């Protein structure tokens, strides 16, 4: 550093040294940076491959040309098929017009409405339900009447026993309905039943079924229409010691009903109470 005119000027030697140092630093840094860079070993192969293969532009042009040529060939090959299909379609259309001139002359069909099918399905279901309700009601009544007439006409002991039991009867709708409707105000069907079948139609309690088969049943206990009380474990029937002749429940039903029908002043609900 030389002082000339009181001012400090940079030493050219030191500046050159600094510049040289910087050059060395740059040189070493660049060489050190590229020391780790190693190209692939197939460089020459790739160069030869580039030389043998055409350029990208040439490849694209070749590709376009090949595709155009291929499309032309495909069109030529498929031309008979296209022509045949067109002719077939024209014949089909002409035949349809000949067969259905009115429909062919009609305008093209309207596009199908999406809500039409579900609406038709719902309407059909509703119609089926209404028809079932309307038709099956009278049919049910007819069947009920028929079954009622059959039950009243044929009085079997089992059927009578069921009626005498007071609960185990057949599930006839008329019988059920009538059994729940009281005949008089203040009386229930159970009372009416008791009134009609006083001693004989009372349900046979369990003491009537004695495994020993001894005739220990009281006089109040009716022998019952059911044969079970008189059945012993030996399997044969024993005559009841105090068996009194009681009318058959079925007969009593019919007789009472006939009597009620014959009596003009009897209430109309008597038959309902009896049943």
């Amino acid at each position, binding site marked *: 550093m030389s002082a000339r005119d009181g001012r400090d000027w940079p030493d050219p030697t030191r500046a050159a040294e600094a*510049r040289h140092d*910087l*050059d060395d*630093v*740059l*040189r*070493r*840094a*660049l*060489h*050190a*940076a*590229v*020391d*780790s*860079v*190693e*190209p*692939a070993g197939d*460089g*020459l192969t*790739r*160069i030869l491959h*580039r*030389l043998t293969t055409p350029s990208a532009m040439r490849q694209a042009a070749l590709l376009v040309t090949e595709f155009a040529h291929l499309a032309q060939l495909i069109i030529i090959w498929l031309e008979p098929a296209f022509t045949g299909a067109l002719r077939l379609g024209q014949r089909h259309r002409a035949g349809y017009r000949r067969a259905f001139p009115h429909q062919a002359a009609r305008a093209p069909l309207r596009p199908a409405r999406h809500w039409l099918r579900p609406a038709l399905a719902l309407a059909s279901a509703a119609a089926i339900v209404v028809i079932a309700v309307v038709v099956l009601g009278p049919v049910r009544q007819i069947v009920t009447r028929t079954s009622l007439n059959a039950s009243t006409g044929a009085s079997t002991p089992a059927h009578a026993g069921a009626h005498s039991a007071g609960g185990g009867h057949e599930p006839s709708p008329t019988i059920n309905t009538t059994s729940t409707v009281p005949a008089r105000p203040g009386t229930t069907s159970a009372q009416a039943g008791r009134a009609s079948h006083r001693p004989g139609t009372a349900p046979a309690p369990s003491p009537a079924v004695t495994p020993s088969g001894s005739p220990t049943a009281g006089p109040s206990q009716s022998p019952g229409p059911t044969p079970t009380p008189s059945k012993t474990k030996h399997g044969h029937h024993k005559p009841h010691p105090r068996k009194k002749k009681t009318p058959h429940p079925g007969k009593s039903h019919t007789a009472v009903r006939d009597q009620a029908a014959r009596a003009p002043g009897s209430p109309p609900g008597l038959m309902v109470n009896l049943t």
Partner: protein
Amino acid sequence: MNRPLTDAAPAPIPVRWDADRALTAMYGDHYRCLVRLAWLLVQDITTAEDVVQDSFAALHTTWRRRRYRDEALAYLRRSVVSRSRSLPRHRIVTERNASPSGPGIPGAELGALFPPEHPAVVGALRSLPARQREALVLRYYDDLPEEQVAGAMGVSKGAVRHHLARATAALQMIVEMDP
């Protein structure tokens, strides 16, 4: 060790050689150095290889028209510099903003073996303009004189000096600022 990429280093190519033979000889002598030169310019090993291979392919294609076959290496260098410069700009920008752990960039264990100024110099080299970076690489990596640098860059000798001065100043500032 890296051999300097000078024109006098390899043996001159005989005039009677055909393109394939000359290409094979040039590939064995200069391919690695040219790839490294291209890597310093484009910062990507794959791109650098593509650039150098394209340059070799161009040399093979123009071999018959080459009047002075001794200029083959100069032609390759000039081709590499020109192709590296003409890369798409978005590609360079992408690579410039990429993380430093690229495929061609040394990792941490390799960086530990390098001089301490190496990462800062390489990073500063990325931030330099293309012309300054080319001049710096050709001058300090290839150890070319200013005339040959000017020939490779296609500019005048004064322009090379200008680019070198600005590039070294920027690098010096960066290296001094970086501890």
